[in-house]
């Protein structure tokens, strides 16, 4: 255990935790915005896969990760339109249609990968950006300021999302349509218009999360996200539908994962103990979810379609 508490290992673990937290955070923030407006999207995982494949494939073809990210954002907007059509126009049950989106993303990205790429070919990712001056601060710089662009974007979006939801008229509309859409409607707020925008934002951020993942590891393969989209949804509940709460959950999850990895690497935990320890992030999430569910209520209109005719 002593090996773990060396400065270099602790620094590497925290930096790893931040990297691992990034896809959760990006997808979780988007889902937070969507759920605050009353729209649940269980298809985050599938949308992340679409974003991951798009970013990977475009980067592979153009050698430009920037184009890869832009393409992933476009796909995110398209998926947002699709999901808005399903949930707002068709008023389909959100849980089921979200699962449909997930299955679509899982199957379609595998199909596209097999048809267009086949054998996994590595791509050059975005590379780390060392923030001038800050990255030179001993230890702190290594932990916080030597990451790739999506990491900075994800954490910078936390206060932006908080401000948007809590301090802007649009944020007020989001909260209103998520709690009492009928009342918001009588006050002239376009319920479905507001939800359309939140769905577009949520899907774009899910795609961005997938793109961040693919560009971080520099590869794509079937089911690359490995359940991260579902964890992101759990983290929205964990964070009580607040951006800082989601960030806390994502960081906790990422750092616990990174710590377990380091323990295994150093042989601190082995065999069955290691497998049990690997469950720690999930167990932690379940415990916190139980606590949160007792203290904080979900948006009242979550999963409830709005139909003015009643």
């Amino acid at each position: 255990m002593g090996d773990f508490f060396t400065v270099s290992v602790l620094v590497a673990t925290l930096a790893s935790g931040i990297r691992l937290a990034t896809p959760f955070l990006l997808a979780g923030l988007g889902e937070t915005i969507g759920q605050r407006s009353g729209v649940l999207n269980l298809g985050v995982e599938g949308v992340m896969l679409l974003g991951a494949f798009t970013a990977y494939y475009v980067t592979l073809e153009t050698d430009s990760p920037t184009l890869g990210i832009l393409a992933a954002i476009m796909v995110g907007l398209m998926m947002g339109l699709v999901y808005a059509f399903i949930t707002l126009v068709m008023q389909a049950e959100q849980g089921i249609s979200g699962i449909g989106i997930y299955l679509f993303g899982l199957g379609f990205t595998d199909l596209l990968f097999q048809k267009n790429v086949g054998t996994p070919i590595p791509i050059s990712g975005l590379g780390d950006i060392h923030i001038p001056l800050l990255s030179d601060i001993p230890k702190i710089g290594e932990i916080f300021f030597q990451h790739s662009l999506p990491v900075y974007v994800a954490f910078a979006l936390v206060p932006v999302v908080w401000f948007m939801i809590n301090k802007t008229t649009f944020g007020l509309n989001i909260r209103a349509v998520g709690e009492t859409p009928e009342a918001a409607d009588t006050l002239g707020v376009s319920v479905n218009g507001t939800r359309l925008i939140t769905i577009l934002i949520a899907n774009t951020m899910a795609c961005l999360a997938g793109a961040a993942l693919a560009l971080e590891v520099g590869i794509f393969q079937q089911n690359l996200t490995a359940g991260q989209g579902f964890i992101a949804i759990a983290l929205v509940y964990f964070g009580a539908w607040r951006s800082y709460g989601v960030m806390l959950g994502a960081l906790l999850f990422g750092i616990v994962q990174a710590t377990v990895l380091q323990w295994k690497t150093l042989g601190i935990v082995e065999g069955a103990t290691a497998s049990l320890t690997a469950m720690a992030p999930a167990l932690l999430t379940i415990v916190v979810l139980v606590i949160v569910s007792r203290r904080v209520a979900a948006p009242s209109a979550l999963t409830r379609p709005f139909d003015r005719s009643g």
Partner: protein
Amino acid sequence: MKASKTRAIASAAAAFALVTTACGSDDAADEPAAEPPVETEAAADEPAAEPAAEPAAEPMKIGIVAPSAENDLAWSQSMFDSVNRVGEGRDIEVAISGGLFVVEDAAAALRGYAEDGFDLVIAHGTQFGGPLQEIADDFPEVAFALGTSTDFFGKDNIFAYSVDAGQGGYVNGVMAAQLTASNVIGVVGPVPAGDAKLYIDGFVAGAEAQNPDAEVNVNYIDSFGDVQLASEAAKAHVANGADVLTGTAQMVVGATGVAAEEGIPWFGTQSNQTDLGADIVVSSQVYHWEIVLEQMLDKITAGTLGGEAFVISFENMGLEMEYNDGFGLDASVRESADATVAGISEGTIEVPAGE
């Protein structure tokens, strides 16, 4: 009310369309015989217009169910490449359902191949053993194969196949111990079971036998598919001073990315992994399943559908070390690897057989 009904129908149609599209790959698994994705060279080279002089014998039909993509540069590809090599000398027809990491989906595909009259249905994953036992009982006239497994469950229509993966692991370990300057070597594995554990145990034994000062850190990430976790595990090894890496299973593409980024030598297994890093891949232990597939097909032709276990190894040429010429491996290290292969084949070097 009418509008509501229309909306409901349209909604159901949209959901159905989504799900059916999403399940495209599974549909393929359900109807494996409709359009076999792979044909043997013999079949492909056959002139289409020229009439056959005499009726040709029916090709043997082989269906493969694998947990990952057939070109994963790892586990599934090892079988895919092997079957293709079998096709060079036999008239076979092959259908593959890859990417079936969900055991229930794999079971449906296995059953589908059996129903469609395939001569040999291969369940290429230990995890498929449970459903295979039930399916095999329903199709006593079909031969099944399960790997890696040494157990055919006492059934006379299941062949079991496995690999002495520790042998190539040992050879890679011997080389890795000579390449490390820091005396720290990192290993990324999925779960401590099957050929992954054999490979890693062999690797550790080889490295320690060659260099007792070498510290081999093994990290089982408890996942066959989490690429990001594999990547972070490799980074953790590097942070702990590892300057040589290896790993096994399909998620190692995440770890090879780290090796490439850091310029760290990588040792591969299952398939030739040079494509994952032309500058950093030193060697790969390659599985030649065709050695056991040929024996199975001969037995099926003779009327035996199972009840036997096979193992590939250096001794029976089922394992082969392939080297990446682009790496520039020192000649003395290569010689030590060749000597180790010879020693294992002759029995003078003992490799841990696992628990």
